[in-house]
């Protein structure tokens, strides 16, 4: 579960956005949609901690795994400088809470991604498409410069792209473009977006899954750093802290307490 993998390609695909493909056959074989890896961006004491990045896509045949991330802070900026052919240390696949992509044939699936929450939905979409599920994706971005993966989603189903500033696609938030109730929805993005999705009137009876983010230290369930409130029963509002890295990062929407 700890791998030293070779960077096969690494390039910028939008403002501060990078796509990194690594050779990691074992990871490619075992990873489920929604899972993530925990990356040591540099062998140094600073930055000290690993960075969690979702699995965007896997190529089981070639044994490669794709990541898309935003180089926003110290660690991801360093990561963005790692060259092709060099090795990267990562843990994974991590997370027991994954997107349900099995036995979904012929169902109507709604995938909703916000910004850097879009990448993990791609792997899920591909698995669903393979089974013949009908896919609609609503992909929201801040502006035209950070729109990613649109074409790849179009190959798998219907796609609506939104931008907050209206510089591309439809103007507004993803929630404004949810127009009918799906059988199942999967969502990943900033917390306020996930909350708005969970509370959306058209999604009250649909099954839904949300992928959450939280600051992590260990990434494997040992430190209790990355918890989120998860309700313990359908009936009342009682909740417990569950570890995002271990029980998540994907949780059933109805269990997530905001």
């Amino acid at each position, binding site marked *: 579960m*700890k791998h030293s993998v070779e960077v096969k390609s690494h390039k910028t695909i939008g403002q501060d956005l990078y796509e990194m493909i690594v050779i990691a056959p074992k990871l490619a074989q075992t990873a489920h949609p929604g899972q993530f890896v925990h990356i040591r961006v540099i062998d140094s004491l600073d930055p*000290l901690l690993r960075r969690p990045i979702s699995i965007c896509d896997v190529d089981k045949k070639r044994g490669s795994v794709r990541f898309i991330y935003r180089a926003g802070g110290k660690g991801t900026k360093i990561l963005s400088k790692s060259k092709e052919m060099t090795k990267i240390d990562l*843990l994974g696949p991590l997370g027991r809470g994954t997107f349900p992509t099995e036995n979904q044939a012929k169902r109507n699936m709604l995938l909703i991604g916000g910004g850097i929450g879009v990448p993990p939905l791609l792997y899920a979409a591909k698995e669903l498409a393979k089974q013949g599920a009908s896919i609609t994706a609503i992909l929201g971005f801040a502006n035209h410069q950070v729109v990613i993966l649109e074409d790849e989603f179009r190959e798998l189903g219907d796609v609506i792209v939104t931008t907050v500033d209206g510089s591309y696609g439809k103007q507004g938030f993803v929630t404004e473009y949810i127009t009918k109730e799906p059988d199942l929805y999967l969502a990943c993005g900033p917390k306020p977006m996930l909350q708005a999705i969970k509370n959306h009137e058209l999604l009250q009876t649909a099954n839904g899954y949300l992928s959450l983010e*939280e*600051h992590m230290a*260990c990434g494997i369930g*040992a430190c*209790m750093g*990355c918890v989120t409130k998860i309700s313990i029963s359908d009936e009342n509002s009682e909740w417990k*802290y569950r570890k995002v890295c271990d029980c998540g990062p994907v949780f059933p929407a109805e269990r997530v307490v905001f």
Partner: protein
Amino acid sequence: MTLKPSLAVDLGFLQLKNPIMPASGCYGFGKEYAQYYDLNKLGAIVVKATTPHERLGNSVPRIAETPAGMLNAIGLQNPGVEVVLEKELPWLKQYDTPVIVNIAGSTLEEYIEVAEKLNQAENVAALEVNISCPNVKAGGLAFGTDCVMAEKVIREVKNISRYPIIAKLSPNVTDIVSISQSVEQAGADAVSLINTLLGMAIDVHRQKPVLANVMGGLSGPAVKPVALRMVWQVSSAVKIPVIGIGGITTGNDVVEFLLAGASAVQIGTANFVDPYACINILQELEEFLSTKSITDIQELIGKAK
């Protein structure tokens, strides 16, 4: 060729096959790391702080990265001593590595309650009394920063418990030496130090503290110089063994703590950086001894003085 060096250390109340143990709160109850390697390789295992009742812990974010370190404000989330007795400790029976249970409480009574309950356990080698947690209101830190309170809680726990007692000290004090002498006086069988330094970080974009709890405990390589200094001071001032903790990430770091007077060490934050940290450190330690032709690791203890 020289013989394989002996890594065993003797704490008096406990013999360890090597001086490496994961630190409390950084290793859960061992299960996660057992997926990476055989826990029997460790000198001992120190499990997450246990309180009399379940604790939910603090709000998130609980973790912030800092230069060569991190802050945490977990707030002692744990399932409570009953669950530890029923589920966690029995699982650890499959290993012959000694288990040290870290205990915490908000009041003297809570410390006593959890210590008492743990007397029922079958595989506890020692209790580590956490009088130094900075993340709980009215919590352990108050006990760990005052000689009288420190003495009292250690004495009471020692009286009630059937296990050897390790007092885990806070570095957030003016005079670590007098605290260590107080707990020795109170009957502690060993001291372990340091727990985390109280610190904080601010998010300049949100203009708010990074941690929901505002303050948290600083750990990792950044704190090593402070930890090492305190181990040096305390090991000169008490007769009981000292367990060194704070920022250890390499075999050389362990050697520094042993030379400063520690008889064993605990590894915390380094486990997050690399799940194999304890194992790698152990190997580096062995290589160090071989290179220097040191046959018994115990030769190093206190040697820099």
